[in-house]
């Protein structure tokens, strides 16, 4: 019982993942700045931001539905932290693993977007409403290629459990190379999930101020910010576990370090991608996802189906 609680609250649960999320935000921001030839923030900047936001006054718009408005950020935060618990971190096992957890992680990572939608919608601000409608519209575009490409990898491993996938690829060391198309598809789709350029349409500041977050302030905004940071870590961890399932050694510490490096590598790729492109329009984004990402995801599934027949 105590062990489970420790898992949930301390490591790899709430405390660890919050710190990891904020550090990931630092890495992202610093790298973004360095790529733009700027100095960038000091390492404690994300922590300082969160502490400042928590200390600030919380304003609930008088026309907003207070229950929904307050529940949405917590709901989102819980979902992303839970998603992280299922990724095999330091060993080819994870404390809460069960068959089918990959589907659950994928759906848990969908919840923040829906929570943002609910929060934005019930805050009744026009900008928040436009932003939340955009967030959901975008969800339908990137979610399909993301699911398809991640499940393609699971298809090859013949399992819907993250631990089993990792075990399968450990047994067949070089099989992960077949999934590289899927990796790039899901990396781009992850940009949409994390609302980063070129898919930061729901919170495009020059158009809709802060999108669904426009009316949020104080603690609730801090939760939302934390939620996006953790979502980045959880998403990167999922991608690392599914597409780079190697580097698990006897020593738990070494495997853990390797895993963290993999997550950092994926975050660095995200920063790089968001540095070199402009924001797309929502119609262009949907076009791009359905006309380019989905065919590639389908191709990945096809490759894996063929491989499954050949390699057996």
């Amino acid at each position: 019982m105590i062990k489970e609680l420790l898992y949930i609250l301390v490591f790899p649960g709430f405390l660890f993942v919050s710190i990891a999320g904020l550090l990931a935000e630092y890495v992202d921001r610093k790298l973004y700045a360095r790529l733009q030839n700027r100095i960038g923030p000091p390492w404690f900047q994300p922590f300082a931001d969160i502490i400042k936001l928590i200390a600030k006054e919380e304003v609930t718009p008088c026309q907003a539905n207070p229950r929904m408005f307050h529940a949405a950020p917590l709901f989102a935060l819980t979902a992303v932290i839970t998603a992280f618990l299922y990724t095999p971190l330091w060993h080819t096992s994870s404390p809460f693993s069960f068959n089918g957890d990959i589907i659950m992680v994928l759906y848990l990572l969908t919840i923040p977007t829906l929570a943002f939608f609910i929060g934005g919608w019930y805050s009744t601000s026009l900008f928040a409403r436009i932003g939340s409608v955009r967030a959901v519209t975008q969800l339908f575009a990137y979610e399909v290629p993301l699911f398809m490409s991640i499940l393609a990898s699971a298809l090859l491993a013949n399992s819907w459990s993250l631990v089993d996938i990792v075990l399968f690829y450990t047994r067949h060391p070089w099989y992960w190379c077949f999934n590289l198309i899927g990796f790039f598809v899901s990396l781009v789709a992850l940009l949409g999930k994390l609302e980063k350029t070129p898919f930061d349409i729901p919170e495009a500041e020059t158009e809709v101020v802060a999108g669904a977050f426009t009316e949020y302030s104080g603690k609730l905004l801090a939760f939302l910010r934390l939620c996006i940071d953790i979502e980045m870590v959880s998403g990167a961890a999922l991608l690392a576990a599914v597409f780079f399932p190697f580097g698990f050694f006897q020593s738990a510490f070494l495997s853990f370090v390797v895993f963290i490096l993999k997550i950092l590598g994926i975050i660095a790729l995200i920063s790089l991608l968001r540095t070199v492109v402009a924001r797309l329009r929502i119609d262009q984004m949907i076009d791009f996802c359905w006309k380019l990402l989905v065919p590639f995801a389908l191709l990945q599934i096809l490759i894996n189906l063929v491989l499954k027949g050949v390699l057996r």
Partner: protein
Amino acid sequence: MIRPGKMMQEVLRSIFKKPATSKYPAEKLEMADNYRGKLKFFPEKCVGCKMCMKDCPTGAIVIVKTGEKQFQAQIDNSKCIFCGQCVDSCFKKALLCTSDVELAQLDREKLKVVFQDESRPKDCPKQ
């Protein structure tokens, strides 16, 4: 060729370059020598023609006679727009622009500077 990520090379190269920004309050900025910053007044050169007062667009400079051929300049840096017209208007070159631009102050009163000849006795009337 039209392609996405056209700036990729440039962006990757700048990781290894020195950042273009600087940690400002820690690292001081260097201004050009002839930058128009804070004004300096030489009381011994002033003849009290008050052309600077007349030409000043904002009324930031006030010349007060403190004694026989003695003048004092009261410069309000919160009003000054650093155009340097007073320097041009002065026939005796009693005014000078320094390249000092760091004027930020919490107290408005501290921005008001009085220049007077220190060697002579003070009998300046407060304006």
